[in-house]
């Protein structure tokens, strides 16, 4: 799910950047350092939408660097346990399938796929019901529920299920929804 959040970061700036454009340089460095990163607490920083405040700089002892506390507004994407979301399947194998929802990867184990769906190997590996009416393959859109999240230093990885009610395939690849 997306959130709009105020975060704070201490930015260090080299003295060569001091001058008329100091604020612009600070904002540029912030965008370069923060956009696209991921933290366990806030999730993926998708985009910075504004700067709320730039505090007074503090000169670090022994170096000429100055540290500025910067508060900024940003859009983040963070998955939660219990969240239902729609994802696109990126890979299918006999252990289950991988799907992506925005910048987050989700794995759905074959144990969490309905029992009447079986893995079919071949050129386009997929999970299919016994009557062939429902198929999960690459680029299928599925609605799944996140049941576990694993937070690393720089990424969040999720486990999902489609074994509950109202979960499963939404559309097949190439079909108009």
């Amino acid at each position, binding site marked *: *799910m997306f*959130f*709009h*959040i*105020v975060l704070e970061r201490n930015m260090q700036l080299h003295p060569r950047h001091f001058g008329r454009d100091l604020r612009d340089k600070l904002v540029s*460095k912030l*965008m*370069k350092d923060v*956009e*696209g990163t*991921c933290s366990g607490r806030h999730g*993926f920083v*998708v*985009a910075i939408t504004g700067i709320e405040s730039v505090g007074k700089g503090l000169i670090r002892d022994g170096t000429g660097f100055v540290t500025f506390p910067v508060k900024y507004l940003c*859009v983040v*994407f963070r998955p*939660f*346990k*219990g*969240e*239902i979301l*729609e994802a696109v399947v*990126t*890979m299918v*194998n*006999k*252990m289950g399938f991988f799907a*992506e929802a*925005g*910048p987050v990867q989700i794995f759905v*184990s074959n*144990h969490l796929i*309905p*029992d*009447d769906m079986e893995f079919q*190997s071949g*050129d*386009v*590996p997929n*999970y299919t*019901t016994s009557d062939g*009416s*429902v198929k999960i393959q*690459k680029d299928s*859109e599925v*609605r799944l*529920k996140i*049941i*576990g999240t*694993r937070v690393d230093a720089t990424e969040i*990885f999720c*486990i999902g299920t*489609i*074994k*509950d*009610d*109202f*979960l*499963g395939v*939404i559309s097949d690849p190439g079909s108009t929804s």
Partner: protein
Amino acid sequence: MQFSNARPHFRLEFRLIRCSQKEMAEKGGKGFSLPKGSLKGKDDNSAKSKQGRKVQIDFEDPLEPNSPKTNGKVNTPISKGDSGKGGKASKAASGGKNSVTKAPSPEFKIEEELPKNVKCLMDCEAAEILQGIQDRMVVISADPSIKIPIPQLSSFVSSSFDSGLTYAKRGGTFSNPQSVRKILEPLIKYGVSEGEMCMVANLKVESDDEVFALVPSLKSEEGKLRDPLKTALNELAKIQSSV
């Protein structure tokens, strides 16, 4: 993988093998299988996955003492037409044959984990914001008189931005996020949290039964919430059909 039968506490262990998507697809087509023994859980000495990293994910249902005996399958009318067909996110109940052994699903609680000043965004709101940023950067980058430092173009370089924008815009969004929020905000006084409200908007649910099945935490307020929810969903359907 190990499953404990005593309680719905289970641990998944598997190896993350870093290879390109292309490699994975090729392997998947040929009946991809993990190296032998990698799922037995205790083979730390296995040298088969050179770049692999063992990931353990523990999850327990926080509502375990209160979980229903039917294991999370709440209010599920079984349609006569669909005899338990799995996999399709249809209006009828899905699910396989052995629903009895299903563990209760975790509930969606975000308020405890996020600070107070956080605003939940619906996908349509996020799409509007991100599209605005992209449009501004396109206009600025097209103007030769404006020099843009390379880091400010990082939004376009960052895959998080691209994938976030694509995800937010998927399947057609509501064209007017403000009216969607106005329609759903009255539900807050019936006990619906902001996160649950945004999730309902994102999923484009069709019926109140679907909402109660997907968001079990709302079941406790079902009595007073059902009618306002139906009204809100009808209004959302009108907005969508008018697009």
